[in-house]
């Protein structure tokens, strides 16, 4: 497993684990980040990511992206 921030842009990957406080995990889940789901990095800016998940675009900062393991 590695953090999502290390994923290559443009390649879909599968989420294996999401760590962190319940509240933040829940919010991530509502945005479409769930274990077993697919996600793809669209763009990367200084560790902050723009991701494609469940047909929508979500921006995450580096600390959040590091909570999502692939």
């Amino acid at each position: 497993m590695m953090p999502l921030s290390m994923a290559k842009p443009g390649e879909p990957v599968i989420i294996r684990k999401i760590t962190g406080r319940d509240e933040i995990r829940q919010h991530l889940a509502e945005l479409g980040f769930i274990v077993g789901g697919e996600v793809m990095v669209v763009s990367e800016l200084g560790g902050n990511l723009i991701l494609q998940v469940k047909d929508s675009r979500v921006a995450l900062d580096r600390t959040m992206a590091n909570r999502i393991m692939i």
Partner: protein
Amino acid sequence: MGNWPGVTVEKKEGRLRGRKDVVIQDLPGIYSLSPYTLEEVVARDYLVGEKPDAILNIVDGTNIERNLYLTTQLIELGLPVVVAVNMMDLVRRNGDEIDLEKLGQALGCQVVSMSALKGEGGMAAAEKAVEAAVAGRAGELPHVFTGSVEHAVAHIEESVSGMVDAGYLRWYAIKLFERDEKVMESLRISPELADHLEAHIADCEAELDDDAESIVTNQRYAYIHGVVSRAVKKKAAAHSLTASDRIDRIVTNRVLALPIFAGIMFLIYAIAMGGWSVSIGTRGTDWANDVLFGEWVPGLFHSILTGVGVAEGTWLYGLIQDGIVAGVGAVLGFVPQILVLCFLLAILEDVGYMARVAFIMDRIFRRFGLSGKSFIPMLVATGCGVPGIMASRTIEQDRDRRMTIMTTGFIPCGAKMPIIGLFAGAVFGNSPLVAVSAFMIGIAAVVISGIMLKKFRIFAGEPAPFVMELPAYHAPAPGNVLRATWERGWSFIRRAGTVILLSSIILWFLMGYGFEGGSFGAVEDMNNSLLAAVGSAVAWIFYPLGWVGENAWKLTCATITGLIAKEEVVNFFGIAFNYAGEADLMEDASGLYPAIAAAFTGLNAYSFMIFNLLCAPCFAAMGAIKREMNNAKWTVGAIGYMCGFAYVVSMIVYQIGGLFTGETTFGVFTAVALVLLAGIIYLLVRKGYQGEAVRNLRSVSAAGI
């Protein structure tokens, strides 16, 4: 629905066109009914507390799976739900197909299609919702949960039935299963019952080896996935790059992001505020000041007044021409600039670029303790502080939100532009550097405040992690852009018609009348006026800022009137120096310049400008701060902080700057200014408050990397 800036942040009420008996309540866009942001709390409180007759759930057809997550929660509320699939035009263009009937059958509610952008289907959807409300019957609840989860939820339903409204039973049961604290509190669950429920939840968690919240989320998505795979046919392969993604690759590119952003901002200010041939805003304002309110309107009033027998020189003529026309005209003159600025910002918002700006700026703002989402309120505040302060609602963490509200007022808003323009023109030879420096001071005030406030325990800790949905880019819809422009511009114009009109009259009276030669009446010398008396009485407060001499009271009064509305400062000078007979505003708007130039030196003009840019905003913005803080102590604290900060900075600039220009000699206040400067520098460099929470958060982020 997505929730990007510019989308509803508070609930709005309206009536359905042609149906006077139907009240529509527009709720903020939310992702779910679990309260993570303030908007979700607003929406949830309304839906659960106010029991609407029906819910019209508008979902984005282009990413239906994520959107149906909320839909399933809404259906569980037991209220009649109509789902309107929005952006159908885009869905069709992508070559996708959504089977509305199948979707409706699976969800147990009516499903219709619409396109808000094209204005299709909205009315029909509303009509369906009305029908559903009249029928008053919710469909059968879909079977979202399976196996042991359904089992546990059913048990909880049994245990709490009778304690809650029958319709909401399922929703409450699921919330209890998720251990939602707010719901537990509101139902006053007894400890015994809580233990009983806990047993069911723990059993289920043990069986599925996951926590209750995740179990619910996963089953919900699993159910939705099943529904979507039956009802929706996608043409494009999953994870292909859309046009939006391709634009994002360039616009948020690590090399190009900042230059592109700087270029766009420069263009906006060039068009709205600059002094070039492309600067429509400036040209409009020049025209309004010189021609419309310089000649036409006063000329019109002159002929009307003399026509009805009011001669020049009478008090009524003076009230109307010198008080109202000059005062309100001075403010309305800036409408073109503000409209152009609001229009351009509305385009950026509608196109979808604004959300990217938050993303780009996040990295930079984080360095001084604010998140990228704080940038949008500040950008909007360059037009008007009130919507700017309101835009802070999208910030999840209370601490960040409060800090954003406190610092947003430092950004020079449209109403402060007249002050800057006046001094730039009168004292600094129209130098564009004055306006630029005003913005720099505003930004520096935000940065310095951010760093300083973070050193205190109450604000300590990292800003909340940045999570934000980005809308797909699309061509701006003229209706949306014009509406946003109008809403923001109108609040400015409306104030000119109300608060400013009234204060112009009051000011005219206070300045024109007073005690002279032992009796009360119209005064010849304005220094004898009522206002001068009030101003002189409190002018000593501003002595350290260099507001000295016979004009000190004018500066003081101007600042006080600035609290009514910042444009009033210019309006006040207009009346103050005009009425003294030193310049005639009616013939030439820039006639004010010589009087201002004579009254100020470069340094105290600058000190005055800084104080007025940074101190407490106008009453309208203070009202917005009070609404958003929702707490008297915080409101007073925020406004007090702004005034104090403004005072300190102006004093430092005047006292220490004066040593170089020779305007001041080293005295008590110079020493005080030096101490204050040292204090600010100390706060900037000292180590922050090191509480438990701070270390915890840091260790989490450190462990993540």
